[in-house]
């Protein structure tokens, strides 16, 4: 019961933070979508970091380390510490500048304007929405599974079918309601405040759990020395080419619609400075403790001297097992709150981003901006957010567990689309036809690899390492090649558009 109370208190606090932030809502659509472009350095850092980190940062990292040792840090987080900030610097800041100057709010608006093509918007919209929805579902299902795991036996008379655990449908329903309550009221402003709060929670919880588990295992050195030393190395846990080609995955942040919207909330270009510097450190602070907990699990013993885990222990259960056995019920509840925080800090931004896209890229685009008052646009967005939350929750009730590998593939899809945003910003000769070809090439190769992975194995990208190379490399290559070839054989964009998006630089 302790865990349930802590989760309830945490969710109540979150609603409180969200609703307090909504008091600062200025009542305009500009405020609802991009916080009047007024966010400062601290809130930008916390909201961007919270949005990019998912439950994988805590649950997946410890499980990955349990299975593959330290290799999981270098594969995922190690590349992110360099490449996330690089994407923020070379892509995010430029998009912020164009967004501020030309009033873009969504990626589709930017691409339509940059390539003078409505058709590009129609091709890109379903692809982006199609990639975000499984990502949302994974978050909801993950939250349901986490709470079910830690509340097992807590309420046997209420939830008989789940052995006394809070059932996933209830957890995901409550989470949807909580997130919707504050994003409905304050839009992106509330999402940014809530993300900052949630980021604090999951970072602190990772460190506290780490410290307490280390103490109970006799200190860091003793805990590590007792662990399986095959997990201390990369050899045998990951291939050289697979390790290297993982660098494509962090490029996915360049195409996340929700991150695009967070970038646009920045007040100035200099607002990005803190994010660029602190993001790598934050990744390290969150990931390293969880990686070590995962490694320690390979050698941890029960009080009666039996191994706590075996080869058959599910990787994603490792963090929960370690927390349950080596901390208190209070901390177990707090760590669960931390995992929920990591999940929800992505969910809220994704809901707002999808609501914004349906409002701006579909309704306002089709009917014309003058057709609606500013107030009506806000209510349209709220309506779409409510509809998307409800629809996602209903799908989550029927979504099979196979949705988890699909979530992993979403990152592959976003990463493979990187060339289209890169050429939009750095290649004057890139054309709408080229970018459309790039999107289609991504979709086709993505479907081929995804289908192949389901036929050949468990449906994860790791099942189809062609010559030891991550499939994202091939899909990325197909996209880049299609953009390049088709752009070169089609009519270049007009001089006006080129001048608009490639202004003369200061002589220096």
């Amino acid at each position, binding site marked *: 019961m302790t865990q349930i109370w802590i989760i309830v208190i945490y969710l109540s606090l979150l609603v409180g933070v969200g609703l307090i932030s909504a008091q600062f809502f200025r009542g305009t659509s500009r405020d609802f979508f991009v916080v009047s472009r007024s966010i400062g350095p601290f809130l930008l850092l916390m909201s961007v970091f919270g949005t990019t980190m998912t439950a994988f940062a805590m649950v997946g990292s410890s499980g990955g380390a349990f299975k593959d*040792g330290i290799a999981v840090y270098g594969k995922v987080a190690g590349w992110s510490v360099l490449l996330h900030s690089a994407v923020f610097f070379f892509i995010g800041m*430029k998009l912020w500048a164009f967004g*501020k100057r030309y009033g873009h709010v969504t990626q589709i608006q930017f691409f339509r304007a940059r390539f003078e093509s409505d058709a590009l918007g129609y091709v890109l919209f379903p692809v982006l929405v199609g990639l975000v929805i499984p990502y949302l579902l994974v978050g909801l299902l993950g939250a349901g599974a986490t709470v079910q795991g830690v509340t097992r036996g807590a309420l046997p008379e209420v939830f008989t079918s789940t052995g006394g655990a809070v059932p996933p449908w209830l957890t995901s329903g409550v989470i949807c309601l909580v997130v919707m309550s504050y994003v409905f009221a304050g839009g992106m402003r509330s999402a940014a405040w809530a993300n900052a709060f949630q980021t604090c929670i999951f970072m602190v919880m990772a460190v506290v759990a780490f410290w307490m588990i280390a103490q109970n295992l006799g200190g860091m050195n003793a805990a590590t020395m007792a662990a399986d030393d095959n997990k201390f*190395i*990369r050899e045998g846990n990951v291939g050289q080419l697979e390790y290297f080609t993982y660098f494509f995955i962090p490029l996915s942040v360049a195409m996340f619609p929700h991150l695009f919207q967070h970038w646009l909330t920045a007040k100035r270009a200099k607002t990005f400075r803190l994010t660029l510097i602190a993001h*790598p450190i934050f990744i390290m602070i969150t990931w390293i403790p969880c990686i*070590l907990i995962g490694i320690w699990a390979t050698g941890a013993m029960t009080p009666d001297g039996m191994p706590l885990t075996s080869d058959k222990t599910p990787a994603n259960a490792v963090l929960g097992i370690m927390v349950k056995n080596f901390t208190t019920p209070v901390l177990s509840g707090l760590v669960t709150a931390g995992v929920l925080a990591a999940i929800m800090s992505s969910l809220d931004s994704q809901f707002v981003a999808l609501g914004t896209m349906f409002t701006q890229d579909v309704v306002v685009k089709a009917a014309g901006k003058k057709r609606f008052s500013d107030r009506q646009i806000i209510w349209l967005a709220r309506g779409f957010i409510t509809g998307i939350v409800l629809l996602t929750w209903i799908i989550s009730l029927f979504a099979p567990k196979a949705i988890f590998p699909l979530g992993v593939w979403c990152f592959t899809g976003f990463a493979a689309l990187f060339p289209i945003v890169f050429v939009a910003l750095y290649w004057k000769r890139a054309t709408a036809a080229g970018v459309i070809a790039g999107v289609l090439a991504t979709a086709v190769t993505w479907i081929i690899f995804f289908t192949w992975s389901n036929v050949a194995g468990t449906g994860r990208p790791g099942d189809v390492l062609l010559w030891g190379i991550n499939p994202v490399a091939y899909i990325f290559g197909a996209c880049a090649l299609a953009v390049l070839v088709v752009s070169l054989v089609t009519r270049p964009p007009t001089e006006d558009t080129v001048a608009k998006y490639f202004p003369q630089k200061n002589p220096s």
Partner: protein
Amino acid sequence: MSKPASRRRRWFFYGLLVILFVFHHDYFFWDWHIVIGGIPAGLVYDMLYSSICAFTWWMMVRFAWPDELEEFADSGEGGKEGL
């Protein structure tokens, strides 16, 4: 208004990023079982790498900042077309 970072200086820092990209690959502790202060050596390498990345971004911000981006966003008809 601060003086914009020179092109040469910017390319120097972009070069540093390329070097960091190369050094992500742990050629040194790939199969070393050594433990340093309770942390496997490969993970210590990762921690050091992460810290160096943060420091490099601090230097980029300090010495290679694109001031013209701010001017571009704020100048002209800035932001009046849309939201």
